[in-house]
């Protein structure tokens, strides 16, 4: 299982072109051109680029992984992931998004290990409601009025009533700023449309929760629920 990332599986990751929607392909190009050239240098065998990739992504990957797995497991998987990259570097191709590639590789590793563990130790399946818990931090840059404050408070509570899969998609989109194409890659969802619908459903639920009821009542309800 160590070095499973072969050329073939990478090609597969990018083969959903029939559904590749053009509306947002470069919505959030994080490193943009610069990152593409770092990746290229890394593929050529440049050690500094490898080091750069590790330094810029290790903590992001760790934070993401820790949302559904424990400390030791995530640390192992991150090291494994970079070993794989080095091992297979001359088989890897230019990737459209380094971040999506790294996130999806890490996610697959963690899921595989979790499955293996749960076969060995029966109880080990993480309580899925503790996965991808979200929050909305308040910055004090602009003082908000009571209405806005309340609304955000409800949104914060409401987010955590969503199924974990929806929460994950929402976090990858808004927090990690991945495009729908990239989320499809990370979450191993074949169709980009399915990812969009996952996010839309989540927001529909938020809207429903926020819509009908008077605000104070809803806060009470959600506080009780959570």
């Amino acid at each position, binding site marked *: 299982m160590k070095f499973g990332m072969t050329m073939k599986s990478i090609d597969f990751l990018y083969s959903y072109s029939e559904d590749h929607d053009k509306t947002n392909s470069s919505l959030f190009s994080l490193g943009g051109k610069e990152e593409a050239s770092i990746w290229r240098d890394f593929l050529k065998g440049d050690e500094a680029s490898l*080091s750069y990739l590790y330094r810029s992504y*290790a903590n992001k990957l760790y934070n993401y992984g820790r949302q559904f797995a424990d400390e030791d497991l995530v640390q192992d998987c991150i090291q494994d992931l970079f070993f794989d990259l*080095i091992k297979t570097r001359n088989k890897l191709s230019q990737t459209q998004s380094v971040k999506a590639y790294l996130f999806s590789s890490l996610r697959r590793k963690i899921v595989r290990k979790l499955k293996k563990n749960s076969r060995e130790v029966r109880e080990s399946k993480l309580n899925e409601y503790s996965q991808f818990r979200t929050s909305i*931090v308040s910055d004090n840059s602009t003082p908000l009025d009571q209405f*806005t404050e309340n609304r955000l408070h409800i949104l914060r509570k409401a987010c*955590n009533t969503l199924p974990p899969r929806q929460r994950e998609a929402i976090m990858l989109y*808004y927090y990690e700023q991945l495009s729908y194409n990239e989320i499809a890659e990370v979450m191993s969802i074949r169709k980009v*449309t399915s990812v*969009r619908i996952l996010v839309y459903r989540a927001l*529909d639920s938020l809207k429903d929760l926020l819509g009908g009821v008077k605000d104070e009542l809803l806060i009470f309800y959600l506080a009780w629920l959570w």
Partner: protein
Amino acid sequence: MTYKNYSDTDFIKDEFFVKWVSDPDEETDLFWKRWIANHPEKRREIEVAKKFIQNLQYADEYSLPEKMFSQIHENIIRFDKSQQNQRLSNKRRGKWWLAAAAITLLFVSVGIFRYNRNHKAETAIAVTYITKETINGVKHTISLPDGTKVKLNSGSSLRYSENFSAGKREVFLEGEAFFEVTEDRQNPFIVRSKDIVTQVLGTSFNVRTYKNERLSKVAVITGKVKVSSANVKPVLLTPKQMAVYDQNARKLITREFDFTEEVGWKEGILNFMNEPLEQVFRELEVWYGVKIQLEDQISLTDVYKGEFKNETLDNVLSAIGYTSGFQYHIEGKNVFVYQSKK
């Protein structure tokens, strides 16, 4: 739905808004700053949506313990160095392959070159035609050299020879069009389409023959029209009559028709007569020039009956979605349709 009616969650859902908040550029910045200035009453919704997008984070944020961070870093660099030697020994083999690849490429490019030359020779003898086309979402009226008026529906094309006026009045139609033909008893007007031929002297009628539809239709408003197809007996239509050709059954039948249903499109009326939702979506795609993408597991067994006159896509979808139980989200030229929760 326009931005005026958006709630905070609607803004959160809107890609153009999200783009502005997370990664603004000149276009988004110009648009949203102006929009907000013109809609002060939406200040709160915008503020909530903005804060949500900017300040959403995990309830528990983690980072690697510093010791672990440098430990893994060292391991990786060490592993990389140990792999370097192996890579060097592979280099020579790599060059050999490069040469082989270059030779293959040479052969392939010769092939392409030759193919291109043959291709050009073929197209040189083509007859010159004038083609008028409408993309999805657009309707267009054309005047032919003989004075005949043709209203071309969305996603259709009309082709006719440069010598059209000289004698033979003949056009080739793909899709749907309404004809008001100038009378000329000496020269019949002929519409050739997918599987039927329509022939008239002077009259108005509608022809619908979309490539992906099983039925081809000709509906007559005034005058007399002859419709024929290969291997079937031609039929003669008078006003209020239509001919329907079924490409599976290869049969041509005549019947009476409802004006709005068959010709309403030219007055901006979108009409569905108990049509399966798949068909409804296909027509909406052509009518509004959008692409409708359905959720994978969505089950659309419903048929829909209804009529809309000059309505926005949003209003049409919201009406159909309400009775048929689906949700949708419009994102530019893309529409995403998914099952409503039970």
